[in-house]
């Protein structure tokens, strides 16, 4: 049932490059389009050889194609022995072998032993022990082909060149980030909480209007000239506005941000920013 090809026998003319247009391996810069014709592989090339395969399915496909066998009808015993010879050889060379190769060897051995068992004629099709392996091989082969098809597609930078025209007026201006008031307040709420946690001098709950007025007063006064105290009030703001202004001025005085002078009793009061 098997026609085992001895590993050291030269093979018939290999079925040339049916499986791949790509160089099989590159050894010292020289592409190898075919594998060595027999299983004798110089030790230094064996590693390259192993790397040339994308796993056990790839190696199996190679063995099948090389002998022009039909994938649907693999002479399992023969292929198994060839496969195992390769694996043994790689192990003899103490090359690190991916575990998947050994798993496949076991799978093949199992199929081979099941093939040897007698089966009732009727169940032959469904029960062919090779079915799953054949399915996987075909499945792998179609994607291997697809990879080659994709490799052959026109590609940007190799076959397709896009245009890139100069744009001298390009302005590098970047819009400043946008901020929502909500985000600002949210952040502030968290600051307050944090401040509460590790600070005992709480932020005083001063009405904002006083703070704002402090800023306005500071904007009005300067360190060189005196500003009339009266000018810091706007009567039209009413009583509330006047009080806020006064509080702001007192607060600024307290913080030594402004100075106040009155040259004579009941005379005009002047304000200037602290130097």
């Amino acid at each position: 049932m098997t026609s085992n090809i001895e590993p050291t026998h030269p093979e018939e003319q290999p079925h040339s490059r049916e499986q791949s247009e790509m160089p099989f391996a590159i050894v010292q810069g020289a592409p190898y389009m075919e594998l060595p014709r027999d299983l004798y592989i110089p030790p230094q090339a064996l590693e390259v050889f192993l790397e040339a395969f994308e796993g056990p399915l790839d190696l199996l496909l190679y063995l099948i194609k090389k002998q022009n066998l039909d994938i649907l009808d693999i002479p399992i015993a023969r292929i198994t022995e060839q496969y195992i010879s390769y694996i043994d050889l790689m192990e003899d060379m103490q090359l690190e072998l991916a575990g998947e190769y050994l798993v496949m060897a076991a799978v093949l051995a199992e199929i081979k032993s099941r093939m040897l068992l007698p089966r009732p004629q009727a169940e032959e099709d469904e029960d062919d022990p090779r079915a799953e392996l054949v399915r996987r091989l075909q499945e792998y082969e179609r994607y291997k082909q697809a990879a080659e098809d994709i490799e052959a597609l026109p590609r940007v930078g190799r076959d397709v060149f896009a245009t890139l025209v100069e744009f001298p007026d390009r302005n590098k201006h970047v819009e400043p980030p946008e901020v929502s008031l909500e985000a600002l307040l949210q952040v502030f709420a968290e600051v307050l909480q944090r401040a509460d946690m590790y600070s005992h001098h709480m932020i005083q709950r001063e009405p904002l209007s006083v703070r704002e007025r402090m800023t306005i007063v500071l904007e009005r006064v300067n360190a060189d000239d005196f500003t009339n105290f009266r000018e810091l009030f706007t009567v039209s703001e009413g009583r509330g506005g006047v009080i806020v202004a006064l509080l702001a001025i007192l607060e600024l005085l307290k913080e030594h941000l402004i100075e106040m002078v009155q040259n004579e009793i009941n005379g005009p009061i002047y304000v200037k920013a602290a130097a």
Partner: protein
Amino acid sequence: MTETELKNILEAALLASDKPMSVSNALTLFKDEPELPEREAIRAALQSLQQDYEGRGVELVEVASGYRFQVRSDYSRWINRLFDERPPRYSRALLETLAIIAYRQPITRAEIEEIRGVSISGSIIKTLQEREWIRVVGHRDVPGKPELLATTREFLDYFNLKKLSELPSLAEIKDFDQLNPDLFEGLEPPAQAGQAYEAGAEAGGEYEATEQDAEDQEESIEAREESENVVPITG
């Protein structure tokens, strides 16, 4: 804005841009204008540009993520000489992984490994993601919630494709039922495929498509349908 102006702006934008421009992208050019041009007007202008460039050195083509001007392939031989840098070569492992994702998306890494029969190095997935050719579109609803990978529009752009269904069609899976029972006579060409074996998880389990947008899904369905035309799935 006159038609000519619109056309000129689009022409300049397409020629100056380093990526394809969709009609929506084109609209953003006009976002400071009192009124946006109609999408129809933009389409018409693009068509008119396409005609203008017939027989010229470059052509306006549509790829997955929009329109781009590119050197007419008749002339790429000469243009190639402009660039010293050789385009990168990709390993077989990377291309096979990419092919499986392209044709079987969305798919998990474990499913790819099952098809290839070997484990996939993390660097391959990483390279594919860095090139923006693949992305995670969800998680399969199985233990461990593995990531589901799919190709992107950038992948299609890079390979000059408009949609997934433009990929070369997958080879047939031959019918094992037709297998010649005589193991030693099995060299004649296999009969036509009647029934194929179920292609793994192609018809696939459930998955949660968290990010994938509608159009992409449509594309992958198209691709799947096409592959289904070739490979009847039983199962």
